[in-house]
């Protein structure tokens, strides 16, 4: 489906990609705009026929044929108009959808580091909203190309056919009207900007008064601030009036200027009818010419819209273009987890750029099926150790899984090995089910049962389809944590890194969940980072971290070897644990 020649940073390519829809638009647009001439022509003919009937030379049958043709023509013309309008909008929607898809794919495949650095994330967010302005401009351009461009051309030609001299005289005025509008555009823009400035000042003053109302009251400044606000209102009022008057009041005036050709038209036109002018006209020609010119003048006064829309779109496009540049992102195929294997960590060192080293020479190894506890005092680097496996930032030393170095894996390969659950449950604003399956089809129920969330979910209004709200706000902290754990287990990987997954749970629940964790994890290696130790006696291995250094061993070994570990254990067993 993706063709190689399509360049997302070229506007032309979007038009080309939508050629089928645009073909429809072109055909219906031409029929509509050229067909528009038929209206005034038939109206003129009918009026002429009426004159003939009144003078006795016309017949009712001829009138009936004319009227019928008129209605049918209008039906066809307006039908095409419907198609044109509908398909222009469909074109815009398709383009906007495509641009957004491309932008979003770029965003979702960018590394976390590059997104958080330099506000790149918000730049992308802004770009996505810029797309709307761009596409709106493209839509208006396409619409006006026909409605203004083709229509003006058609009307102009028709006028020239009837009487080219008179047509030329009349058509002097619409450009003058347009030029006047252009000339005054600067004033309109300037007053508009001033209006916006004053509006912003008023908003700021309003917010200040609302936010600091009590401060002003305590210091006895309320009346004074009210008077100052009155001044804000005064200057806003005059600025807003100026901006709006320039903006709205001028349109009827421009239209009047464009219509200045009318007296010439009537004067010379009637000479044509009475046979003393440049061409020989009947009444029908006279009224048709007048109707056509009126429509032309009206269209011409809206020509400025075309340029404004294009200009606005250009501004947005300039912001979006650099982000769209480059090939479209290839999205990774869905992940097939690697087979269980041994994990080896040797002399692992890690530091954030420009900061002190957080992990020094960490070494340990784990066999399939092992559960490894990681603990230590606050800020000992245990969470950093967990994140090191994700390779968001480079590490030194070595992390190998099945003999393969972590940093040399592709992103897809890495996500087939390491499963990670951090402090933040990172839930989607979607249903419970969506949050666990994330598009996969396996049954989520066993995993909900494993994290002891099945009963609570069943009691929710919509069960599995209950929405959890933005960032899972509709769930309690413990529920969100368990849901995230269910998601991680559902997407089982040979190495599961769980950073404090039980922190918001009570002790009995934690024990129950741990039992099912062991069962579900099976052959996977589980790295369980926690500050609560009562599960640690059951672990296959324990890593004690202090100031970035690791001491590895079994629970019993560490109890003997490390007094800090023993002390922490004793303290928690004494029941002084904060839940």
């Amino acid at each position, binding site marked *: 489906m993706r063709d190689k020649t399509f360049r997302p940073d070229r506007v032309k390519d979007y038009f080309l990609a939508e050629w089928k829809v645009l073909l429809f638009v072109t055909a219906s647009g031409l029929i509509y705009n050229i067909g528009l001439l038929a209206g005034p022509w038939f109206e003129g003919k009918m009026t002429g026929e009426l004159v003939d009937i009144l003078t006795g030379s016309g017949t009712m049958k001829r009138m009936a044929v004319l009227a019928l043709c008129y209605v049918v023509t209008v039906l066809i013309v307006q039908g095409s108009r419907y198609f044109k309008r509908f398909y222009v909008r469909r074109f815009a929607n398709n383009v906007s959808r495509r641009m957004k898809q491309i932008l979003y794919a770029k965003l979702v495949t960018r590394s976390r580091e590059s997104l958080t650095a330099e506000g790149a994330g918000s730049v992308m967010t802004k770009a996505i909203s810029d797309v709307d302005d761009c596409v709106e401009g493209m839509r208006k351009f396409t619409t006006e190309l026909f409605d203004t461009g083709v229509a003006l051309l058609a009307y102009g030609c028709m006028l020239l056919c009837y009487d080219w001299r008179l047509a030329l005289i009349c058509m002097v005025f619409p450009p003058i009207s347009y030029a006047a509008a252009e000339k005054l555009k600067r004033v309109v823009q300037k007053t508009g900007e001033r209006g916006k400035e004053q509006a912003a000042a008023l908003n700021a003053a309003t917010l200040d008064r609302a936010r600091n109302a009590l401060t002003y009251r305590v210091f006895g400044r309320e009346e004074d601030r009210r008077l100052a606000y009155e001044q804000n209102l005064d200057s806003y009022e005059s600025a807003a009036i100026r901006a709006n008057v320039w903006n709205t009041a001028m349109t009827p005036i421009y239209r009047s200027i464009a219509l200045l050709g009318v007296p010439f038209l009537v004067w010379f036109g009637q000479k044509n*009818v009475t046979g003393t002018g440049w061409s020989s006209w009947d009444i029908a020609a006279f009224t048709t010419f007048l109707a056509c010119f009126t429509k032309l003048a009206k269209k011409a006064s809206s020509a400025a819209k075309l340029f404004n829309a294009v200009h606005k779109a250009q501004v947005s496009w300039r912001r979006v273009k650099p982000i769209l540049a480059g090939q479209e992102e290839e999205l990774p195929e869905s992940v097939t987890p690697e087979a269980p294997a041994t994990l080896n960590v040797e002399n692992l060192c890690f530091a954030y750029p420009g900061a002190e080293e957080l992990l020094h020479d960490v070494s340990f190894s784990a066999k399939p099926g092992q559960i490894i506890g990681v603990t230590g005092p606050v800020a000992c680097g245990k969470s950093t150790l967990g994140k090191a496996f994700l390779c968001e930032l480079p590490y030194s030393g070595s992390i190998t899984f099945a003999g393969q170095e972590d940093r040399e894996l592709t992103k897809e390969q890495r996500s087939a090995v390491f499963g990670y659950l951090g402090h933040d449950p990172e839930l989607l604003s979607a249903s419970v089910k969506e949050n666990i399956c994330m598009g996969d089809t396996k049954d989520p129920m066993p995993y909900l049962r494993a994290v002891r969330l099945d009963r609570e979910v069943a009691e929710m209004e919509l069960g599995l389809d209950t929405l959890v709200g933005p960032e899972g706000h509709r769930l309690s902290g413990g529920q969100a944590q368990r849901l995230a754990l269910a998601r991680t287990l559902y997407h089982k990987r040979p190495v599961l890194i769980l950073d404090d997954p039980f922190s918001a749970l009570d002790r009995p629940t934690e024990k129950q969940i741990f039992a099912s964790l062991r069962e579900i994890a099976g052959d996977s290696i589980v790295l369980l980072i926690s500050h609560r130790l009562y599960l640690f006696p059951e672990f296959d291995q324990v890593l004690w971290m202090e100031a970035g250094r690791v001491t590895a061993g079994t629970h019993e070994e560490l109890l003997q070897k490390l007094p800090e570990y023993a002390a922490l254990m004793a303290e928690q067993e004494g029941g002084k644990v904060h839940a």
Partner: protein
Amino acid sequence: MRNVKNIRTVLLETVKHQTCLSLAILVTVVGAVVSALLPPLLLAKIVDDLTSGVAASLGNVVLYFGLLALTGLLESARESLLTVFGQKITHGLRSRMMEKLTRLTSGALAVRDPGELAARFVGDVDTVENLFSAGIISMFADLCKIVSILAVLSRKNPGLCLVLLCLLPVLFAFTRYVQKNMLKAQLENRRAVGRASAFVPQTLHNIRTIHALGKERYMCARYDCFIGQSYGAMEKTNFYDAIYSPIILILNALMVGIVMLLSATGDASVLRVFGMSAGTAVAVIGYISQIFTPVESLGMEIQAIQSAMAGVRRIDEILAEPERSMPPETTEPVSGAAAAELRNVTFGYDEKDVLQNVSLRVEAGEQVTLAGRTGAGKSTVLKLLLGLYPPKAGQALLFGIPAEKIPEGDKRYLIGYVEQSFHMVPGTVREQITLYDDRITEAQVRKAAELVGLLKTIEALDKGFDTPCAPELFSQGQWQLLSIARAAVTDPKLLLLDEITANLDAETEHMVLEALNRVSENRTVISISHRASARTGRIVTVTPQA
């Protein structure tokens, strides 16, 4: 002027105050309607003259254009006047609302979200303006247009007028049907757009999980699904939007065709109601196309009015809120009274009392620290002394005057208040200290800054005291010092110090406490503090009510 209870009174007031403007609007509205009627009539005469072989006079030709131009001018004037009028209304409304804000009870202010409150001042007031200019007045204009066109047609072609009278209600019903469906689809679209745009920050937030699970493809599909939903809704809008005016114009053509045909019948009884000359036919074609536009606008105006009503209700809600009793302009000083005194005060923010029958007397020159558990009512005591709330029973007196009756102008000279956290006001560093008070001299400002130890820091800034403030200009501790300067600048007799909540490092905290000690010297001070190094003076324990 006082006690404005709802928007209607404000509107009527504006109309009354702007009599000329209101009349001018009426004239231009009616004028534009009438002048739009005339050109087709004149054209009819010209065409009829032409058919009988008489050329139109130059005067008529010029008049024809003159009328077209006049219509344009009147429309332009109407739009301008409406803008002015709308602004007068919003100005008046905002003034009344601000007046109301100063009269709201402190309790009502404390619970209101400032952003939401500001939105009522800004957005909701704008919708009221919209209600007026895009709603009621345009509706009046459009109705006038319809009625006047029908009136002219009833003379020129009574048959057509009758047909239109039957057709217009149907047309209007159709218009409303289309508009309602469009609105529904638009709302649906807006919701879908909201979901799609909320999805982007959500993705940024969850990016680690997405990468770790390899869910990029899934997320793209999900995003596309939201966009798809939005486009589904938009296609519906597009359908109605695209179908409406073709139908109207086809109807228009049908009417013209029928009228032409009927006027061409030789039948005398038909011609009595449908007969017309060629000139009239031209005019009638013009009128028919003119009558459809106001029908469409009428629907939009109804919609504008409906959506503005919610804004009107929200504003009325504020204007109807209970008011506090305002302090008088001046009060008589009471001799021999204590600096601050609570006399058998009972108070609670709601039914539950926080303080019950509390008495406390602080003599001039005394330094008192209020102690007690969180929620015991220490801050409440300060709020009562600041006059923010009247006690339910008993009296809170400052220098013998009930605290809430202290005139606004005297307040800063009697009491200085150091708030829990600094509230920055928009403006310069000087204005942070003066709160825009012109009575405060430059020397006083400098003295206050020096007293809290900020003078050098401020003078080192680019523009010194004239530097515009932004949150990053000072550290948290420095802002707190500025807050002390704000309280001390007027050299008040009594200082009320609330507990400072900002997280300060040890050194900054020391600076703040030093500054507090300096300003407390030779002054009556009531403070709430847990901090060890503050001078405590007499300690009064506030006990919580069960």
